[in-house]
């Protein structure tokens, strides 16, 4: 008995010693600018409120996503640009997407410097973000414009979320978006209570508003949970952060799997209706709808072309499917960060320009 207590006790003591050592070394390494990726490894495990507090307090830190992609601000900028546009310059390509779409569009601009492009994007944005911004941005499009709806295969499960902060545990950009549910033949849009960075900042000082926001997430968002949001005080321990990262990523992966298995959220029907409504709305407004189906590297991702091609064909909507040009299982097509290599983006851009010209 004595031996067992000493072994278990000493092991715990050593873990604590290691933890204190790591906790002491990390800030030191940060100050000297060494081991940046290793520090990041430990930072990833902070609770979501903990990470957001760090971002809010340190606006200049690399990778800070606190202020990006807030819908109110995107729409405000869009309206300003729209008001200042010279219609003599011809139609504008208005894209609703994410970095993948932006990279293709930048290549398109290089090929065709005359191209007018207006971007609306969020990091890793799911289709409910891109579709919702397309809907809300309706006053800021003209007849003859091209509307691009970006759908990223890896972000499809996140259609069951209202903010990246609930599902992108390691990079929890707090920007928000509506969640869509099936209603009759159409879709019901449930908007988030928080839609701009200022409102979000105020949550820190307003516990009642914060509770209300969390209550909405608890009710509507299939990814929100204590593994990522609870017990922020544990962030003081690097070991606890590592454990949290493990638990949170596993739980979130399980939640994603449940969406893909259609156990919790009918992503396929919702996505089909989004594409249908996108196409019909754009056409009704005299615009040209183009859907980007971006198949990312993960072989477990939803096959966008198989799911959406029948709808696109039925609606006679143009589309650019990356899987028709590049095998997504080919690792040589991708950069280490998961984006397509520039030459691939150029290939997609050429195809896009061929569609709209």
């Amino acid at each position: 008995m004595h031996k067992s207590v000493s072994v278990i006790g000493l092991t715990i003591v050593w873990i604590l010693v290691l933890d204190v050592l790591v906790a002491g070394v990390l800030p030191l390494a940060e100050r000297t600018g060494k081991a940046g990726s290793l520090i990041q490894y430990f930072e990833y495990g902070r609770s979501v409120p903990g990470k957001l507090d760090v971002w809010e307090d340190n606006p200049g830190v690399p990778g800070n996503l606190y202020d990006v992609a807030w819908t109110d601000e995107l729409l405000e900028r869009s309206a300003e640009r729209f008001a200042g546009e010279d219609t003599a310059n011809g139609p504008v390509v208005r894209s609703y997407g994410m970095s993948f779409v932006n990279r293709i569009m930048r290549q398109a601009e290089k090929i065709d410097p005359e191209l007018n492009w207006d971007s609306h994007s969020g990091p890793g944005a799911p289709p409910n973000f891109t579709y919702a911004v397309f809907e809300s941005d309706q006053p800021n499009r003209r007849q003859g414009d091209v509307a691009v709806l970006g759908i990223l295969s890896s972000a499809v499960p996140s259609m069951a979320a209202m903010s990246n902060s609930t599902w992108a545990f390691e990079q929890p950009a707090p920007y928000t978006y509506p969640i869509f549910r099936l209603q009759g033949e159409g879709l019901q849009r449930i908007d988030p209570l928080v839609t701009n960075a200022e409102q979000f900042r105020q949550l820190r000082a307003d516990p009642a508003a914060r509770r209300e926001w969390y209550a909405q997430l608890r009710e509507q968002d299939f990814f929100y949970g204590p593994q990522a949001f609870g017990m922020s005080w544990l962030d003081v321990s690097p070991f606890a952060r590592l454990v949290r990262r493990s638990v949170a990523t596993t739980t979130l992966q399980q939640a994603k799997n449940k969406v893909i298995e259609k156990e919790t959220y009918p992503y396929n029907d919702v996505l089909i209706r989004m594409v249908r409504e996108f196409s019909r709305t754009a056409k009704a407004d005299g615009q040209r709808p183009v859907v980007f189906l971006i198949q990312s590297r993960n072989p477990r991702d939803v096959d966008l072309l198989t799911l959406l091609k029948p709808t696109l064909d039925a609606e006679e909507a143009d589309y650019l499917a990356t899987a028709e040009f590049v095998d997504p299982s080919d690792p040589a097509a991708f950069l280490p960060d998961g984006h397509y290599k520039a030459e691939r983006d150029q290939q997609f851009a050429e195809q896009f320009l061929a569609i709209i010209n």
Partner: protein
Amino acid sequence: MLFSELNFWAFFAIVGGLYVILPHKAQNRMLLVASYVFYAAWDWRFLSLIMLSTVVDYILGLRMAKETVEQRRKLFLYISLALNLGMLGIFKYLGFFVESFEALLASVGFATDPLVLSIVLPVGISFYTFQTLSYTFDIYRRDLEPAEDFFDFALFVAFFPQLVAGPIERAKNLLPNIALPRVLTWKNFERGAVLCLLGLLKKIVIADGIAPSVDAIYASPDPSRLDIIFATWLFAIQIYCDFSGYTDIARGVAKMLGFGLMRNFAQPYFASDPQEFWRRWHISLSTWLRDYLYISLGGNRGGSFKTYRNLIATMVLGGLWHGAAWNFVLWGSFQGGLLAVHRAIAGRQKAGAEGVARGLKGMAVRVLSIAAFFQVVCYGWLLFRATSFDQIANFTGRIIGTVSAPAVVSVPTPPLAAFLCLGLLFVWDLMTEKSNEVHFYERWPTPVRTAMYASMFYLLAFGSTTATSTFIYFQF
């Protein structure tokens, strides 16, 4: 319920809690119920197969032991073989043979309506089938007395730590361990916990950490030569860590409950020839194949040609045991061929001298032999991991340069934690090998030992952020 998931450890905590307060017989009954619950967590319908196999082999074992007429004893053995191999045949191989037969007919111009058999493979069927078969074989050979207590026998068949992926236990080892009271000691608990920790590191940090890199290359339509070589090296590490990780946890969990399961791996990549490799890799299967198949086929009695034939036939069936696919048959043939060639070249003289390295020159020769033989093993893993004959031909062509391939290296880099843990595992295996003692760390002073445990816990937390996947050997 995977060993690498928290729900298994919650399950084990409940089982362990009940175990310590129950008397011996009640412990066995509780473990049987727990084992059935554990299996039912995958698919409760297939419990019926385990129960059927248990009931039939229990009755046949008793009848066989009492029977004095040889022909009747043989009949009982055949019934057991028919039932167990029949189940395995239907659930594991029927679809494969039907498809292969249809393909054969089509290749000679006979088109048939494709018969699609959607048969689900019950988890662990190859493992518990071989385990129960060894029981009836041993009784038939009068090497074993049958189990008296039906529920003890049922626990032998279904014991949850090793039910779904082995080790394939022998009744001579496990049945007495079930039948006799077990003593729970701190030493066993500590050894079991260390095995579990090591197994989790192997599985979660190394195997799951490097799996995406391997998958990416084996799914790639145009990998380079170096991609294939790196990915196959990584797969060799992945499959070792995945499978031996499972075994370590199985043995660790059993050890904490007072059971001693057999060792399944003994630093296999320190082997320098095929014979040595099969003494170190999946020991419970290789000894099973030796005792019940190779020897039954005649073993090395009957001259060189028959020995080679028996070796190759045994390994082909061993390959087929892994799965109903032609690449496993090819892998088995490759292993059988290696064993036959090695036997022809080295003969028997070398047995007993292996592993002995005298002086610096001897050590250098041994290290070089190990490194060279590892490449041979890796080519076997390419056959094992490939998804089709076309891929085998294509990848082989790219390696030897007969198929053009890009020069770039695009293998995704595995996470840092996987490399750190791989370093730890290498040192661990080296120390086990050098000391010839699996509990080498017990000689260390408690503060040093506990510092190592703490580091292992920290490393596990550090590396447990990758997505976990099922154990590779569950599909067999």
